[in-house]
């Protein structure tokens, strides 16, 4: 039974692939058949896909409307290709859509959390488009993302209140990077590097929600961590060696999370949440802490 990446890669050799090793574990531990696992994955993929597309055309209404309409703007801009190209701009539009749906108390699939629910769907849609993946290939990549996420949940944390945004959007980016390497048919070595690179790129990222709302900077972080996932996978697939093994990067993430002061862990007391403008928004929306 795996509990870290090293052991997962070892089991993958025997099972034939990383996806198969994660599948076997899920079936054994939770008494499910292969069909049941895939049916559950397909249900979640549908919720993810829907949330990533829902706000592209119609802005969502939410408390304060701080991020309402972001997805539509980015979607329109993506058609011009901008400076970072259409793939990146489209990925950001999808990530922003899920963030809008989430903020409006709509239905999302947490991956690993609701605050970070935009990253994985946006990256999966982008990567699947680029390599023309089948539904089955997408679900296999989701299995791997889930396995990677389980390791990071167990060995670090996915709670922003415990580990900052690096534990939410950062872990989501590492899961998504693992999924992209899987879709690309990469090796375990490349997958490990993609996870490490993604985590290195966001290490120390704080959780500082303006007015305690899951809107700003959350939506921008979903968009930028989706991009982090894509470029980390690209670097690993180009043959960049992360040098630091993924299990050590996860351990570092956990330690950094514990050393972050409470003000930077989802308390809206530090970071941009403590800015003058954020304070004004908090007062205007009457979002003060409980007394």
């Amino acid at each position, binding site marked *: *039974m795996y*509990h870290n990446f090293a052991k997962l890669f070892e089991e993958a050799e025997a099972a034939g692939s990383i996806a198969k090793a*994660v599948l076997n*574990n*899920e079936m054994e*531990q*939770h*008494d499910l058949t292969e069909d049941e696992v895939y049916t*559950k994955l397909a*249900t*979640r993929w549908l919720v993810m896909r829907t949330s990533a597309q829902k706000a592209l055309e119609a802005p969502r209404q939410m*408390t304060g409307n701080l991020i309402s309409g972001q997805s539509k703007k980015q979607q329109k801009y993506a058609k011009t290709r901008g400076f970072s190209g259409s793939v990146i701009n489209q990925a950001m539009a999808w990530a922003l859509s899920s963030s809008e*749906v989430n*903020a409006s*108390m*709509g*239905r*999302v*699939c*947490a*991956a*690993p*959390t*609701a*605050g970070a*629910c935009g990253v*994985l769907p946006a990256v999966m849609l982008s990567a699947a488009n680029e390599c023309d993946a089948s539904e089955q290939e997408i679900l296999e990549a989701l*299995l791997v*993302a*889930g*396995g990677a*996420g*389980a*390791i990071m*949940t*167990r060995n670090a*944390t*996915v*709670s*922003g*209140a*415990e580990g900052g945004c690096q534990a939410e959007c950062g872990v989501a980016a590492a*899961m998504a990077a693992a999924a992209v390497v899987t879709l690309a048919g990469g090796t375990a070595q490349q997958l490990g590097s993609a996870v490490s690179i993604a985590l290195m790129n966001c290490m120390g990222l704080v959780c500082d*929600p303006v007015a*305690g*709302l*899951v*809107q700003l900077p959350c939506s921008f972080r979903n968009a930028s961590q989706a991009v982090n996932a894509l470029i980390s996978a690209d670097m690993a697939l180009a043959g960049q060696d992360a040098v630091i093994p993924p299990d050590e990067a996860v351990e570092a993430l956990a330690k950094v999370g514990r050393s972050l002061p*409470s003000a930077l*862990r*989802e*308390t*809206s*007391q530090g970071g941009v949440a403590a800015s003058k403008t954020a304070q004004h928004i908090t007062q205007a*929306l*009457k*979002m003060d*802490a*409980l*007394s």
Partner: protein
Amino acid sequence: MELSIFEVLGPVMIGPSSSHTAGAARLARVAAEIAQKPFGRVEFGLSGSFAKTCRGHGTDKALLAGAIGLSPDDEQIADAEKLAAKAGVEWRLYREDLDWMHENSVHIIFHHEDDTSTEIWGSSIGGGRIEITRIGDFETRIHAENPTMLVNHLDRPGVISELSRVLAHYEVNIAVLRLSRVGRGRQANAMFIVDNEIPQAAVDELNALPHVEEVVVVDVS
């Protein structure tokens, strides 16, 4: 890996926060199942990040929604206050220091119609996962990811053996068993995490055992 990939790729839920909305709803729902008896008033003492971002994250609505039995993926969570008022349930949220617990913790007090109350402490530990850490006088550790059975009993020799005999008879496999007690020979609590559903007949039989005072099954999976 004991943790299911569906705890990570999930839950499917109503936003905006897996810990502060979905986790809060699940925590209160599990707590209400443990409390069992109907209640006319419920109080939530919130600490740490829970107290600081409460309204912005919809934690107030989610806790109330869970207490009145809604699931984390129920779109009615946004209307929890209206639903609770309609059901004649009063509620209060306040800030409480629970520094020894996780950042996202709550102390829930259910005031039952028979003038008794049930106090439960728990935390939302990330990604919608929860941990109930204390029920009344008993320390515990309940995640409610598998069917869980709580048995209040007197601390007497052979009680655990009888409980497990009945479970074995109904082919219920025990994954984890944790025991705690107020003191030798006094009130005790056994928590069983099991692999499969516990049939009602088993619960009835367990309830009839000597020294067993109450059996509560929590199954929200």
